[in-house]
């Protein structure tokens, strides 16, 4: 696991610590400990796990989200909730005299406040997610499978594309769609000359370039090595070729700057395209495009 985000949440961590200390000092400062026989262990188990799990939730929020309004609201809400849970938990071990009886009366109020804050935060989270989804457009179709994302380019891998093509074949039998596969020319040579670190960077930047040249409905995935695969819904072969040509032109005019001395290196893409046929299947379709691409590359 990657804990680097934790370091950026110092304020939130202090707030969490504050709630924790307040709960402990209130309960143990005002009450007297029960004897062993008086403790109802089933209750302890139940309340204890609620408190413990709220810790875990806060922890996961802190390690997975960068700082910001939504994160603060989520953590704050959970802290209120945890505060109630802790009071509930501790009073299984404590007697309160009359002066401190208010504690058991008010102990559920923070949880209510917390729930309000969290509801607000979840609404904000929803808005945030919509923004992020827009950023992911053309990288992602109707499904999210983070295990299938390629580390280098942050695009989905071939498996995901196969599933999406399959979905198109099954759901949209009446309208043809096209599949394009593109490949960077002499990429091995580039790797040998400039190193694999720059090679990875080329892959990332070419991916970005292809993305900005696509329409909203298109999907780009990394196929293998220096090969990219495109799914163009409701698009005939001619239109697909035109689009692929535009991408190739964009890449040809883009100058990659090497890490060594900032030299400009230009790249060229080669592509092949085909459209879906009646009673088509995923593998034969991809295979047709791949064979075409090999023919083009050998010529």
């Amino acid at each position: 696991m990657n804990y680097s985000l934790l370091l950026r949440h110092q304020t939130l961590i202090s707030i969490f610590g504050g709630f924790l200390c307040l709960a402990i000092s209130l309960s143990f400062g005002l009450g007297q400990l029960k004897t062993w026989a008086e403790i109802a262990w089933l209750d302890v188990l139940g309340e204890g796990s609620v408190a413990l799990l709220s810790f875990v939730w806060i922890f996961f929020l802190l390690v997975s989200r960068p700082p910001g309004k939504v994160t603060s609201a989520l953590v704050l809400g959970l802290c209120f909730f945890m505060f109630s849970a802790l009071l509930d938990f501790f009073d299984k071990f404590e007697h309160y005299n009359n002066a401190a009886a208010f504690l058991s009366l008010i102990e559920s109020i923070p949880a209510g406040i917390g729930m309000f804050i969290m509801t607000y935060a979840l609404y904000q989270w929803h808005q945030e997610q919509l923004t992020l989804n827009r950023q992911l457009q053309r990288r992602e179709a109707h499904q999210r499978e983070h295990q299938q994302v390629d580390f280098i380019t942050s695009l989905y891998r071939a498996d995901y594309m196969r599933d999406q093509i399959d979905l198109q074949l099954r759901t949209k039998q009446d309208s043809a769609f096209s599949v394009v596969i593109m490949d960077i020319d002499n990429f091995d040579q580039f790797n040998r000359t400039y190193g694999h670190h720059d090679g990875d960077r080329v892959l990332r930047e070419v991916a970005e370039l292809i993305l900005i040249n696509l329409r909203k409905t298109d999907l780009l995935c990394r196929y293998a090595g220096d090969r990219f695969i495109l799914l163009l819904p409701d698009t005939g072969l001619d239109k697909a070729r035109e689009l692929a040509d535009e991408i190739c032109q964009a890449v040809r005019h883009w100058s990659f700057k090497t890490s060594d001395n900032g030299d400009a290196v230009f790249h060229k893409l080669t592509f092949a395209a085909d459209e879906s046929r009646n009673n088509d299947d995923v593998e034969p379709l991809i295979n047709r495009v791949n064979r075409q691409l090999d023919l083009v590359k050998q010529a």
Partner: protein
Amino acid sequence: MQRAALKQSLFSDDKFLPAHQLVASLLDIAISRGANKQRLMRGTGIFYEDIVTGQGKISPLQFFKFVANVQAQTNGKDNAFLLGRRLFPGNYGHVSNALMHSRNLSDALRLAQRFQMILCPFVDIRRYQDQHFCHFIVRDALGCGEHWPFIIETYSTALIAASKLLAGKRIPFYVDFPFARPRHIQEYEENIGLRLRFSQPFWRIRVEKQWLNQPFLQPSHSLKQHAMQQALQDLPDGVSFLKQIRQLIQCLPASKLDTIAHRLNMSPATFKRKLKSHGMRFQQLQDELGTEQALYLLQVQGLNNEDSALAMQFSDVTNFRRAVKRWTGLTPSELRLGAE
């Protein structure tokens, strides 16, 4: 009986692989994909210093452990292919130089065979030719076990990438794989090509004979000789264990386990134990050689069942057919058709 001195056997726990080659390249790949260096080395007994100084040696078992760590820490299926593409020429020093200056594919393949203990000590290669093709049957020489597919992916890719670099164009190799068609087929297509067959009896590489004379880009006899002289000094003094046994079984056909053990100066019990630690049984090795011979007779020579049975010293055709079925799961006639 006069006996030539045997080369020393190299076992999977002998430290004879230079740490800076395979491990260094794979380490780079894994780190650039977000893996953690300490966790990659954990439990392998390999030290980072060994890799950097270029002096350390590791055993195949250590390498396999390292591969397992890499696979566990990176979620892609492309590690072997990336490694294969990086092996040549960077990893092999003098041998790479010698290959660079070889005349043609045939010359390079001969060189590769000579320096196989440097290029790929994991395998045992047997070569034969028929009318149209040159075949290479490649077998596990060190008990690679579950990592055998990794080795196959890596070195198939390396062969394709290296031959493309040397010839200046892609040479059409046909590759058979001894496992089912994997889900990450795209890596095979991209790195090895489209002439692939899966679920075959062994890992086999074929190339049409006319390509053997394909001229390479930088031929030079004297530079090649010079590089070879230097490369000879790096050649490990020994031979991978299973490869050695296969050679012995072939030289002493129909010999029993005890004979081979004796020839290796081992007790039969030690010999059996060593075989087991390499994931192999003696019978299995004999069956493999039988399969190979039957395939050769049926597919390459195109003999009928009677003649093949005779050539392999079976008493009758029924026994021959039964044996072939047991070895390959196919009848002799089906096997003959498989040549197409």
